[in-house]
């Protein structure tokens, strides 16, 4: 069995419209990654494809994407969930000792070629929610936001504070697609209403995205990079499907996933031991909600923490120093965007967004309406 597994390299492409085919996207990402590393597809022992057939529009869609990714006559498997689960799967394959390397190949063209909300729409129960006809991705997020703010006694201004913090950082990040000038509280507050209390700039922008992430055993990582980023822990958990059975004011599944990840990584006081967090918060309220649930902020203290700047770079626990998912997000790829940003921070390659002394990071990915399923990865150098 392998001792430990590193993230050794990645390649990420994001745009409102990438103007490309699904096949060309994965070809360019994999070919580009191999060329940068001076390897070819035969250096990859296992391919973990990460996409969603609803979004691709073809059933068993990876059959079209395997060969352009370099997987012809190679070990190949698929994860139809957020990318952090694909990373976990690749990590497990290497830990088994059967493989030295695993490549995660992820894509979703939800900016130009299909609405991201389609995914949620078809996940609804045909016997109940679809018959009622009121629940969708945006109404679900709005209901969760209102329930959370009301339960905690937070003002709706918290949503503007979260979004302004994220969008100010996203504006400085060349990998983000929503890069606004004057992305402050005023700009957020004056964006158009969607479902109350949410406004346009509280919500992630529809994004075309593709990402490849190369994982390797300790031995192989030494050949491929001088800056390995180690996977220290992972946790996953899923809440009940039915919306009306959930506690919308918190996320027990995020709490559970984080607990497992902390335990595997040997963290006993995570809020202190973690230097920063990259959280897939698709709507502004999800960032404090998930941070509280994962134990990064004390429950009930989020508004105070955001007002005090605790979650900004330089604060006691920076959250989404990359600008987070309000800058760009696509299903499947979303968690990998957060992972790539964390890897850059840990390697000291985050440019204008670089934090001082970042050595341990929490990365979070989610799936399902209002983050029904959560995955947490602890990375470290």
């Amino acid at each position, binding site marked *: 069995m392998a001792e430990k597994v590193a993230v050794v390299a990645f390649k990420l492409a994001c745009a409102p419209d990438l103007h490309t085919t699904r096949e060309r996207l994965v070809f360019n990402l994999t070919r580009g990654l191999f060329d940068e590393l001076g390897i070819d597809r035969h250096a990859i022992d296992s391919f973990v494809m990460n996409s969603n057939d609803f979004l691709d529009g073809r059933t068993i869609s990876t059959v079209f994407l395997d060969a352009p990714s370099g997987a012809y006559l190679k070990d190949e498997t698929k994860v139809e969930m957020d990318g952090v689960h694909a990373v976990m799967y690749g990590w497990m394959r290497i830990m088994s000792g059967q493989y030295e390397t695993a490549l995660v190949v992820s894509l979703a063209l939800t900016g130009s070629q*299909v609405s991201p909300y389609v995914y949620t729409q078809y996940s609804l129960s045909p016997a109940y929610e679809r018959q009622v006809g009121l629940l969708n991705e945006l109404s679900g997020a709005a209901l969760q936001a209102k329930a959370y703010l009301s339960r905690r006694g937070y003002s709706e201004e918290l949503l503007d504070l979260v979004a302004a913090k994220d969008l100010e950082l996203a504006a400085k990040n060349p990998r983000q697609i929503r890069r606004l000038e004057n992305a402050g509280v005023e700009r957020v507050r004056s964006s158009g209403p969607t479902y109350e209390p949410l406004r346009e700039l509280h919500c992630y922008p529809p994004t075309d995205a593709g990402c490849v992430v190369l994982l390797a055993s300790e031995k192989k990582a030494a050949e491929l990079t001088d800056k390995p980023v180690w996977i220290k822990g992972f946790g996953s958990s899923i809440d009940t499907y039915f919306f009306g059975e959930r506690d919308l004011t918190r996320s027990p599944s995020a709490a559970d996933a984080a607990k497992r990840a902390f335990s595997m990584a040997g963290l006993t006081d995570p809020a202190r031991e973690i230097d920063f967090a990259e959280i897939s918060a698709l709507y502004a309220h999800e960032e404090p909600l998930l941070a509280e649930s994962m134990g990064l902020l004390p429950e009930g203290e989020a508004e105070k923490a955001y007002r005090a700047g605790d979650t900004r770079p330089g604060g006691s626990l920076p959250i989404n120093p990359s600008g987070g998912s309000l800058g760009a997000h696509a299903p499947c790829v979303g968690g990998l965007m957060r992972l790539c940003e964390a890897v850059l921070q840990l390697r000291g390659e985050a440019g204008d967004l670089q934090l001082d002394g970042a050595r341990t990071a929490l990365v979070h990915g989610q799936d399902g309406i209002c983050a029904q399923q959560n995955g947490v990865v602890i990375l470290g150098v």
Partner: protein
Amino acid sequence: MEETRIVHGYWELSTFNFNIEARGINLMLEGFKEKKLKGIKCHQCGMVYLPGPFYCRKCHVNIDEPVEISDHGTVRTYTVQYADIRGEPMPEPRVSAMVQFDGCDSWVMGVVQCDPKDIHVGMRVKIKWKEQTVGNMQDMEAFVPE
């Protein structure tokens, strides 16, 4: 026990768009106008594809070298069809075969105009082109024995 009931569901597919790169298919259809087969060859391993993709499956490199392929070839496998996929009997049995044209690695599927008793693996065939070819899939009317 309560009876189960049926609720209606649907999968709306019209919201999907597919960007496509059709160079290999366009090259093939352009060739049809002149009653020729045109594929794409990998400069690295020499594999000839029809229709041509933009990359080689084996070498994982961009490929873009048009190559002309003979319209004579060899039957590599075939089937005689007596009913359609829903089980409806065919008016006449239909022979469909995969043919490897001389100078090409890919096999191409089409109808062979011959007696079902005569078809066999290794049979030599050629393309029967429409008299007026326009550059669509119907230009290739059928395969016929050489």
